[in-house]
């Protein structure tokens, strides 16, 4: 099998991570924010898989599994909060949530 330079895998992860970060920073729709967070987590997972395949380990995959679990739980709670938010504010604009400051 041909080899793949490890840096390319990590670079891909970094790119996805950055795009996710841009999403978190720019989107006002909270659902998109949540999705961007998923992109970031997924990018981390990708980095783990890349690293695991460098070492030929299974540990990295386990870490990926944990990230998956974490993502699932987070999305569950996050979406629960979004529902409550929509009920209260009738909007998905994250800027609405700025009553506490100073």
């Amino acid at each position: 099998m041909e080899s793949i330079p490890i840096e390319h895998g990590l670079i891909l992860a970094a790119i996805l991570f950055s795009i996710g970060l841009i999403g978190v920073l720019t989107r006002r729709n909270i659902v998109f924010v949540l999705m961007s967070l998923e992109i970031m987590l997924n990018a981390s997972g990708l980095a783990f898989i890349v690293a695991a395949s460098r070492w030929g380990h299974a540990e990295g995959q386990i870490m990926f599994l944990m990230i998956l679990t974490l993502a699932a739980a987070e999305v569950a709670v996050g979406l629960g909060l979004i529902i409550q938010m929509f009920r209260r504010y009738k909007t998905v604009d994250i800027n609405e949530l700025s009553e506490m400051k100073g």
Partner: protein
Amino acid sequence: MLDLIWLLPTYPLLGFLALVLTSGRLPKKIVGIIGAGSVGLSFLTAAIIATQFLAGGEDYFVKEVWAWMAVGSFTPGFSFYLDGLSLVMMLVITGVGFLIHLYATGYMADDPSFSRFFSYMNLFVAAMLMLVLGDNLVLLYLGWEGVGLCSYLLIGFWYTNPANGYAARKAFIVTRVGDTSMAIGLFLLFAQLGTLNIQDVLHAAEAEWAVGSGLAIAAALLLLGGAVGKSAQLPLQTWLPDAMAGPTPISALIHAATMVTAGVYLIARTHILFEIAPSVQLLVAWIGLITVLMAGFIALTQSDIKRILAFSTMSQIGYMFLALGVGAWSAAIFHLMTHAFFKALLFLASGTVILSVHHEQNIFKMGGLRKKLPVSFASFLIGSLALTAFPFTSGYFSKDEILLAALEMDGPGTILWVGGVLGAFLTGIYTFRLFFIVFFGENKGHVPENEVGGIHMNGPLFLLMILSLVGGFIAIPVESVFSHGEVHEEHHVSTLIHGFMIAVPLIGIVISYLFFYAKIFSIEKLMSIPISQTLHRFWFSGWGMDWLYDRLIVFPFLWLSKINKADLIDSFYAFIVKFARASNAMIVRTQTGYIRWYALSIAAGLVVLISIGVLL
């Protein structure tokens, strides 16, 4: 009996305590008895001690009462040192002091603060005795400061008038400048010689310091600073005229007879120091001379009876300084004594006058009082004659000695003599100007009903009249004190010069007579000359010294105080507070409440920290 020397200051001190602790609850009679009596007791004791001492023939006598403090080699004690010099001083203080106390019982009889007055007076006498009897400079300094305090208290005795308070503070602060100089002198002496016992200091200084050495000059200069402050000599003379705000007995006791001469005493006491610093000794002479003349000219223009006397005091002390400066130590002390007699007399007499004319002090509102106030008239006559050195009065002998000593001095002696004679001329004019204006001519203001008096006021006056007349025949036993350095020979001067010296004050009296009694010369005409007006204003204001000091020291100090009331240094801390608040206001704005902003800060932190981490 000599051992009981400590009783001298103790009596008045006890009197002071008794009066303070009862604080005005005693009847005036008892207050008077305590106040004057304690000083009288002191005088009696002093007299007995003096006779014993003189009979004993010892040069000096030391009595340590108790050790004050002992810190390493610094061991001043409450020890009294008696020799001819302190003997004279002690007798003058207690004697004249007693007479003035006695006079004051009458003079102050109507004052509501009678008791307070005598408590201060007693404290003063106690302090003054400490000053002259102390065998070390620290004890001397204690008395020195103590008399200063009493002077302050008594000048400001009538405290309701702010002007009196001002005068009192001025007196204290100006003299304190001198005192500080003296204190530094003490530090210097101790640092260099390891002791502050006066005799030890003198011996050590003589042994260790070469004549004219820098240290000797510095030490003598610093002590001189103290002396000019206390004795109202140039340049610290400005407080004395204002000090006349106090009750007249105070002026007599403190500001004529005793305290102001403390500077003379100090220099005489430490004369060896001045001898090994000849340049400073010469400076003393010059200071004395200049003060004589300055004060004389000022006195020519004054209209307040007490101020005239004050300037004359200043001028007479100038003579004493002159004497000290030319090395005529005993002449200085002799003049100190005679001056105490006749100046006390003059002040007390002026007190009677003032009281009789209902507290009027302007001589131009008096006049023609000769008939109404005979005792005062007699007192003034004798006092004035003594002051102008009318032959064979007490002042004549002492002043004569001074001038002769100046004449005999090498170098600037002649100039000093000329100046001194000029001063005597001025003395003649201003003294009799006062005399003629007050007692002759038309009355222009208050006509007194009758002379205030009584035995306790007139008695002292009579005694002082006698002393002023015959005081010149008293021989003061100071040879042993000054034998060391003084040239003690008969004065060989021609009769011409002697005659001249006698004549000059008389000419002054005559001029005064022509102007103010016979009115042959008109003072108004003289004043119409522009230059004389200017001079008059200039002299009247005391050569503008007050004006100068105000501009140089007082106003800048007040200005500095005013602009820095809030304490500049504190504003630095205030700035820190302001800065913290501003930072808070700025940084709180970053807590916008927006999630995206918060996320941005995280991202920014990430970027910045990684940059720092990678680049460094």
